[in-house]
Structures are given as structure tokens and as C-alpha cells.
């Protein structure tokens, strides 16, 4: 039986152009730019300086607080500078720039392809290794994984939900990873189960990936009877944490709450693979699978790229930037961020690079709202985007709070579906920002 979340959602054209393309390892580039904030929370603090000799896998920056993550080098070479550089959001932030020499890794890392299955008996040991390896949520938000793995006092996490939904159109990196690294993923899931003490683990996969559902089910059976692969009806934004929990377990995370409030921890499938490598192969997170795709891209691919590689290098492998490209997006078309410059680096959360043609980049012509209520119908959080937009238009910031504007997950379904071409989500973001400003000033 296919499950899904009950209310809202849209079904954009899937366009999984890089589907089935096997993961190709990309050689290190000449220079890498490694941002020190690739996660939610405090930026990491650099522990290297200009001129230092570096090995791949060596610590570059230490977590700058509990909600923060270590940053490791993805290449071997010499630190050229530690300075502010623009990242994919366009803002300048501290980065470590390394001139690459050879490809020497820290000796502790197990570079073989042997499968390791020994699960440490001590959950603390797993958590420590995850924190040490600088693993963050690889689906896009980049929340430090060790923080999610630390279940707060008085709460229990009985269920681990693995987000293998990949509901964003175009992206195939998770799909391909599941097809090629199923054993490693399942062991990673078991490691995380152990770390949080979750009896059950569910792997949610949308039904447009029947091969992945079948493959992971087979592999999971080999290792554990407590890992269920759950097929889900194709519907965006099923990869949203709250939507996924609702779809898989029918539990509703309370407004303003966290998954742990309903006994769940949600982790991305890419994160499960990274956990496996960190715990059993001693490998910090410094490379990831990235889909490079787009309608006019010559050769859509799934690449295993080092963190810090300029995205232009990945696009070159996919056949270069097509003539008609107007927009380059870091991530998928629904929630990805458009970049201003192709020299920005791949980070821990870059699941894809999408090249959008001139024709598709145009926003639709804007009409008056015709109150068709489709935005309210597709909102997975049951908000009323048209109402929020009207309030924002007249600067009624505080009135937005009782309308639950802060529950908005910014999935973009409202903007996507609006027949009048109104960028509803832009209005909502503006409202959220201004409301948050007011709330913060009240606190202080």
C-alpha cells in the first residue's frame, strides 16, 4: 500500500534526466574553496593557517558550538588563504582555500571497498564519530547530524525515518546512491538506530523509484528485520520532515515542535551513507554525490565530487554550460538556491546543480489574485498563502503570527500552483522575516 501525507502537495514534472547514470568519481580540482559554514548553526572555527600542509580528511575547522559541525579538507595540498569568499548563497563567509597537490589522504581512512559490518556496541562511540566526521543533513538543510542523534532528556526516539523520498524534480543523487551503495546505507541506518536507541527504522521512498524500493528491501532483509522500506505515492513536498513523518507513521509534529516530540528522528539517505563511512571507515564527510542536470544539459550526470570543488568544474563534466542557460540552481527546482556565479563551491548540502533555460527561468506573468484557493489547497501545512500575501501587502506583520506563518516550510507549492502567477512564497518569506524581527526585538 502506498502512503502519502493527506493534505496539500503538488506534482511537478519529474524530469529525472540523470536517472540511472552511475556515480562517476570526479578528480580533485586545482584549488578548492571550503566554506566554514555549510550547516545550520554557528560557523566552524579554522584551525589551519596560510602555508599549512594539508591531507585529505584532515580537520580544517572545529565546530563553533554544540549546533555546529567540523569541517575537513577534501584534498591534499597547501592552504593558500583563509579569507572571506562568496558561497552559493552569494554572501561572503570565511573559507579555507587550498591549492591541491596530489591526492594523499589521512592514513586512518580506510580507502578500500571492503564492506564493514561491525556495529559498535556503545551508542556514545557512534555519536562521537559522527560529530568528529562533521556530518550534517545532506538533504539540503544541513542540520548537524550529531545534534539530532542526541536525544534530549525525557524524550525517546523509537522510530528512525530515513528520507529517501527525493521529491525534488530533476535530482537523482540519492536514487543512484541507493542503487550503488545499498549495503552501506542499510548499515548506516543500523548505526543510527543504535545511536538513538530506535527500535524501528523506516526508509521512505517515492514510487517513481521502484527499483530502489525493491533493491533496498532485499538488502535490508539481509541485515535486520527492524528496517522497513516504505513505498510512498509521488507527491511534493514529501521530503519535508513533517510531511514524511505524517506519511509514514501518520503522526503529526505539533506546530513549532520537532520530530522528536512524536518519537521520531528523520535523516536523509545520503546522511546514512556518510554515517557508515564515518563510523566504520573513519572517513570524514568531504565528498558527496551531486546530480548535474537540466533540460538542455548535454550529458546529465551523477558525480562524486569533493567538497569545495567549483560548480563550474562539475558542469564541464556534464558537457559545459548550454548556450540558453539563464539560471543555475544549487539544489532542485522547488527549493534550490539560484547562484550568481559559477565559481561557488560544492558544499555538504549540494544535492544537485540544475541549469535552467531562458524559457523556463521566466516567471509567469502576474495577474490579480482570483481567489481560486488553490494555494490554500496545496499548502502541506494547511496555511492560507493568499491571506498571508494580503497581510504582507499592507505590512500587518504581527497579524501573521496567529495565521501560523512561522509554520511555513517554504516548499513553494503555492507559488508553483498559482494561476495568477503571484510569487506567494516571496511575500511569505518577507512576512516571516519581519515578524521574526519583531519577535526578537520583543525578547531583548
Amino acid at each position, binding site marked *: 500500500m502506498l502512503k502519502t501525507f493527506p493534505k496539500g502537495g503538488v506534482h511537478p514534472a519529474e524530469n529525472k534526466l540523470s536517472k540511472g547514470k552511475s556515480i562517476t568519481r570526479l578528480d580533485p580540482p586545482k584549488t578548492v574553496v571550503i566554506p566554514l559554514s555549510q550547516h545550520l548553526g554557528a560557523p566552524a572555527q579554522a584551525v589551519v593557517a596560510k602555508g599549512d600542509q594539508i591531507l585529505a580528511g584532515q580537520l580544517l575547522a572545529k565546530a563553533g558550538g554544540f549546533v555546529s559541525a567540523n569541517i575537513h579538507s577534501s584534498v591534499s595540498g597547501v592552504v593558500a588563504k583563509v579569507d572571506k569568499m562568496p558561497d552559493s548563497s*552569494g554572501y561572503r563567509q570565511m573559507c579555507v582555500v587550498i591549492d591541491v597537490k596530489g591526492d594523499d589522504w589521512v592514513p586512518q581512512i580506510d580507502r578500500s571497498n571492503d564492506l564493514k559490518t561491525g556495529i559498535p556496541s556503545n551508542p556514545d562511540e557512534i555519536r562521537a564519530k559522527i560529530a568528529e566526521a562533521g556530518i550534517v543533513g545532506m538533504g539540503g538543510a544541513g542540520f548537524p547530524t550529531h545534534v539530532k542523534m542526541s536525544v534530549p532528556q525525557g524524550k525517546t526516539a523509537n522510530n528512525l525515518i530515513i528520507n529517501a523520498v527525493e521529491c525534488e524534480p530533476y535530482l537523482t543523487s540519492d536514487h543512484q546512491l541507493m542503487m550503488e551503495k545499498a549495503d552501506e546505507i542499510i548499515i548506516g541506518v543500523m548505526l543510527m538506530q543504535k545511536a538513538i536507541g530506535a527500535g524501528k527504522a523506516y526508509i521512505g521512498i517515492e514510487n517513481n523509484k521502484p527499483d530502489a524500493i525493491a533493491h533496498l528491501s532485499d538488502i535490508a532483509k539481509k541485515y535486520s528485520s527492524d528496517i522497513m522500506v516504505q513505498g510512498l505515492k509521488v507527491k511534493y513536498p514529501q521530503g519535508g520532515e513533517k510531511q514524511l513523518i505524517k506519511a509514514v507513521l501518520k503522526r503529526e509534529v505539533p506546530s513549532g515542535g520537532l520530530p522528536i516530540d512524536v518519537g521520531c528522528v528523520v535523516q536523509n539517505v545520503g546522511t546514512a551513507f556518510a554515517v557508515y563511512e564515518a563510523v566504520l571507515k573513519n572517513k570524514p564527510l568531504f565528498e558527496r554525490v551531486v546530480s548535474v542536470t537540466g533540460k538542455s544539459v548535454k550529458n546529465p550526470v551523477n558525480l562524486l565530487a569533493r567538497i569545495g570543488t567549483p560548480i563550474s568544474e562539475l558542469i564541464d563534466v556534464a558537457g559545459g*554550460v548550454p548556450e540558453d542557460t539563464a*539560471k543555475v540552481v544549487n539544489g532542485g527546482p522547488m527549493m534550490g538556491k539560484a547562484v550568481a556565479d559559477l565559481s561557488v563551491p560544492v558544499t555538504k548540502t549540494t544535492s544537485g546543480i540544475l541549469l535552467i533555460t531562458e524559457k523556463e527561468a521566466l516567471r509567469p506573468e502576474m495577474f490579480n489574485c482570483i481567489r481560486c484557493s488553490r494555494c*490554500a489547497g496545496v499548502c502541506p501545512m*494547511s496555511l492560507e498563502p493568499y491571506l498571508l500575501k494580503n497581510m504582507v501587502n499592507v505590512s500587518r506583520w504581527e497579524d501573521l503570527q496567529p495565521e501560523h506563518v512561522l509554520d511555513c516550510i517554504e516548499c513553494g507549492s503555492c507559488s*508553483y500552483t498559482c494561476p495568477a502567477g503571484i510569487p506567494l512564497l516571496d511575500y511569505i518569506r518577507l512576512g516571516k522575516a519581519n515578524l521574526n524581527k519583531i519577535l526578537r526585538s520583543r525578547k531583548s
Partner: protein
Amino acid sequence: MALNRLTVSMSPHDYGHDSVKKIMLWVVIAMLPAFIVSAVFFGLDAIRVNLIAIAACVFFEWLIQKIFFKGKSTVGDLSAVVTGMLLAFNVPSNLPWWIIIIGALVSIGIAKMSFGGLGNNPFNPALVGRVFLLISFPVQMTSWPKVQVMNFALTDAQTGATPLAIVKEGIKNGQSFGDIMSNMPVSYSDMFMGQMGGSLGEISALALLVGGLILLIRKIITWHIPVSMLASVAIFTGVLHLINPAAYADPAFHLLTGGMMLGAIFMATDMVTSPMTPKGQIIFGVGIGIITVLIRVWGAYPEGVSFAILIMNALVPLINNWTKPKRFGEIIKK
């Protein structure tokens, strides 16, 4: 490629393919079956009224936009065409051209553009136009040509009363509903097909249902308003009929006559003037149904659909406030 050519904008970067124009176009397409039936039964007159109403509505929208709003003309969104067609559907086919133009001016000028154009009008523009005409020109608005199949001559057709008026008059004079129906020139199946006196577009329940099906398939309307409205009419009149079959018409009669189907499928479902949530839409539909029956049975007019829809239009902001969707993760306070 030069770096400064990259577009940077906020997500989402993909858009659905529906637009206001497409929606309006599909509404026009959904009205075509009823339009064809009206041309078959009322001849060239039906086409004449439609063309005048559409042309006048589009012209007034263009003119008012040009004089008062400046900016880009909005006639391209086709909403004025829909208003024009709906206005034509709501008047008798023998209406003089100058009355149609007055109706179009009221619909577009007063009911729509004075509120700021498409999307801002609280009341259904075509209905405001119709009701204005009904009150101002009661004689012309209630002289219904008799239907003549495939009569394309522009002659003065005979006029006669609608079934609703016949029943209302008869019951007032003390006749029983059964007696009135036995003398009625048209049967229920004639009514279903559209062979009865009435406004141009309201006569054929069948054609309107086909149009409704098109709107449902295209997801322009949902079932909530038509079903709740028709069901509440059926239940209300059914109860009355059971209590006293002689004094009250049966539900089938009420559903098939007058503007019931046109109102339920095309007028009440107007996106702009109907509630946003399914729950609100059901309240809205039930309200229209009840008010319609009240007017038909106890009011001065034989027909009450237009008034009922306009009254409920006025309540839409309140209904929207009452029927907030239950938010995801909302904790209900006990």
C-alpha cells in the same frame, strides 16, 4: 557565457502551467454546450444577445481600465468574456440591445471595475447586472419567448411564462401543484433537455451538467458548492412537498426549472466570490439553497437563485473567517 547574465531569484524555479487566461478559456468552453442549446431553442436571438453582451463587457472593461487605471489592459485575461456570456445567459433572448448594454455597464463598471477589477469584486458581476436589469426593466426582463426548435428567423416570437411563474401563480390562486403540472405544456424531460421558457442559458439542465463536468475535470470548480446547494434545495423542497404535496412543488421541479443549474454550476462557483475552504464552500452552497427556496416559495419573485447567490456573496468574508483550515500540527485548545 558572461557571469552577469545569470538570473538570481528565490525558489521555486519551476511553475505550473495553469493561468488565469486558461481558466477563463475553459469556463467559456464549458459554457458552449448551454450556448448551443440556447441557439437551437431561441434561434439567432440567442447569438445576438451573447455577442452584444460579450462585446459590451469587453469594451467597458477596456474603456474603464484606460480611463481610470492606466497600465496594461486586462481584457486579455478573458474574464470580461466570461462575464458577458454569463450576463447573456441570465436574460431573456428577446431583450432589446440597449438594455443588454446597460446590463454590461453595470456588471463591469459597477460590480467589477469599481472594486479594482478582476479578483476584487465581492459580488458576482453578471448577477449584479442581471438583478439591476430585473428591478429596472421588470417587463422586458420577464417576457420569455417560447422555445421553437431550430427557428432561425429573427421574428417576434410568442412570449409566455416560465414554469416557475406558472406554478407560483397557480398555487397563489388556490390550484394544487398536481393540477398545475397536468396542464403544464412541458414535461420534466423537456425541462431537462431545455425545451422550456426561461433565460437564455438556464434552460437545459443537461447542457449545464455537461459544462459542469468539464469544469470539474479541469479542476476549475470542486463539487462542494453545486452539490451542497442542489442537495439543500432538494431536501428543503422535498420536506415541504411531503408535508403538503398540493401547496409545494416537488424537488425535481425545483431543480430543473429557473436558474438552479446555471446558478449552481456557473454562478455560485465563481472563484472570486465564493469561500476558500471546502467547509466554507459547503456552508455557502447550503445557504444559497435555503435562501433560494425561501424566495421561490414565500417571496414575491418566482425565482430566487440570483438573489440568494448575491446575499451569500456578501457573507463570504465572514465564512472565510469562520472556516479556517485546521493547520498542520495545530493543537486544539480544550
